[in-house]
C-alpha cells in the first residue's frame, strides 16, 4: 500500500524508515527537500566558502545514508538534520580557530568594498554586505541562532531542538542578537549619512 503512494507525499520520518532499507528513491526525495537548505546554511555559516559548503553538504547527507539509525523518529527530521549540521560547523570552528580567519577575510574584502550609495535610503546590496559583516562579528551561538531563525526559517521550537536548549534561551538569544545587529547597523547608517553629505556629487 505504501509503495503505491508517491515518495514526494511521504513524511520525512517515513522516508527515513525507507532509507534504513537502503531505498535510494527515499533518499532522493529527502535530498530534494533539504539539499538547498543545507547547502545555503553551510555556505553562510562557513565564511561563504562554496567548496567547503559543498564538502559539508555531501558529508552531512553521507552520514544520513550511512547511519540512518541515528535518527530519532520521535523528533522532526528537519531539526535533527540541523542539529547534525550545527555540530559539524562547531567542529569546523574549533578546528580553524573559529573567528580569526573569518575576520581576516572580511577585513580584506571590506577594505576594497565600494559604496553604491542610493539617495534617501540604504541600498539593498550595501545593507546585505554590512549585515554580513555585522553577523560575522557575532559569536558563534548568536550567529547560528540568527541564521536558523531568519535564513532557514526554523521556528523557535525547532531551533531549540536543533541547538539542544530551551525555547526561552532561543528567544533571549534572538532578541539580543537583533539588538546588537541594530546597534551596529545604526552606526553604519550614521557613517553612511556622513559619507553622503561629504560626497554630494556621487551619482
Amino acid at each position, binding site marked *: 500500500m505504501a509503495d503505491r503512494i508517491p515518495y514526494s507525499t511521504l513524511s520525512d520520518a517515513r522516508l527515513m524508515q525507507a532509507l534504513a532499507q*537502503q531505498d*535510494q528513491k527515499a*533518499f*532522493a526525495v529527502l*535530498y530534494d527537500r533539504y*539539499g*538547498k*537548505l*543545507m*547547502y*545555503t546554511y553551510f*555556505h553562510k555559516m562557513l565564511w561563504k566558502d562554496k567548496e567547503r*559548503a*559543498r564538502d559539508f*553538504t*555531501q558529508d552531512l*547527507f*553521507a552520514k544520513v*545514508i*550511512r547511519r540512518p539509525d541515528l535518527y530519532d523518529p520521535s523528533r522532526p527530521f528537519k531539526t535533527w538534520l540541523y542539529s547534525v549540521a550545527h555540530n559539524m560547523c562547531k567542529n569546523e570552528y574549533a578546528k580553524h580557530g573559529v573567528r580569526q580567519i573569518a575576520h581576516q577575510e572580511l577585513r580584506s574584502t571590506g577594505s576594497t568594498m565600494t559604496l553604491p550609495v542610493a539617495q534617501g535610503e540604504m541600498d*539593498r546590496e550595501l*545593507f*546585505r554586505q554590512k*549585515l554580513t559583516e555585522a553577523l560575522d562579528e557575532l559569536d558563534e551561538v548568536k550567529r547560528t541562532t540568527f541564521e536558523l531563525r*531568519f*535564513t532557514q*526559517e526554523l521556528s*523557535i521550537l525547532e531551533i531549540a531542538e536543533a541547538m539542544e536548549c530551551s525555547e526561552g534561551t532561543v*528567544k533571549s538569544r*534572538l*532578541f539580543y542578537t*537583533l*539588538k546588537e*545587529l*541594530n546597534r551596529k*547597523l*545604526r552606526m553604519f547608517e550614521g557613517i553612511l549619512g556622513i559619507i553622503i553629505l561629504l560626497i554630494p556629487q556621487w551619482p
Partner: protein
Amino acid sequence: MAMNTPTPYDPEDIESLMLHKRFEELYPEEREFVLRHVDGADEYESMRRMLHDLLEDRDSGGLLEPDPAIRRNLMAMFPSEERSGFRIWLNSLLLKLWPPALIWYRTPAFQLAFSTAALLLAVWVIWPAPGAELAQNRVTPAVGEKEALPTEADSLVPAAPAEVQPVETETDHQDQPVHAESSTEMEITDVTPGAYPPVQSDDYSDDKIAKAATAPNNTADGEGLSVFANQAEKSENESVEAMSESKARNRKSNTNMIQPPVSSSMHEVDGLLDVLYTAR
C-alpha cells in the same frame, strides 16, 4: 469572544510584536513588556525596520543551488540492484544462522569453546597422520642410496638405440691383450626376457677368455685366440643382429606403450657387449 480570537503574534515574543505592530499600535501591557527589553520607541522602530529588511533580504536572496555533483556522488553510495539482492539474501541467511534474539552464542564461554573446537578440527585436518608419514618413508629412497628412482620423465623417454660397432677384422686386435676382468665383474640383472637372446655362457666363460688371452697366437694345434675369436665373432654377430632386431621391435612398440624404466643395468649390458667387441 475577543479573548478567544487568535492573534497573529505572540504577545510574549518581542520579535513577533515587532513584525506585526508599530510602537504606537502596542497595547499598554505589550508596550510595558517591550520597554523592559528596549530603551525606547526609537530603538523599537529601528529594530523593527531592520527585522523587515532581514526578511526582505532573505526572500529576495533565496536559497543557493548546490553542485549537482553532490547528488550524483551521494546516489553512487547506494549499492546496485543486483548487489542489493545478493546482500539481502546473504543477510537473511546470516540472520537464520545467527538469530539476533538468541544471545547464548554471545557468551564468552561459548565463544571460547567454539574457537577451541574449531582450532582442534583445523589441526586434525591439516596435521599429517603418522601412518601416512611412515608409508611415505618407505617409498622415499635412503639417503646413502646411489641410484635414484626412475622418474616418470625418464620412463617416457625412449631408450637410445644401441650403436652397433662395425665388425672389425681379426688383425685389428691381434696384438692387444683382452681384459677379461671387465666382462666378469659385470652382472646382467635387469634383462627383459625375450628382449635379448640368451648369452652362451660356455662361449664367454671366464676361464676360456682368460686362457685365450694368455695363450700364444700361433700354436701348433691351431687353438688359440684366433680360433676362439672366430667362434666368438660368429656368436656375436648373431647376438648383435638379434639385439638390433629386438631393439627395433621395442622402439616400435614404445610408440604405443609406456617404456619400462631404463635402469643402469641396461647400459651395463651395452657396456658388456662393447667389451666383447673389444675382446674380438
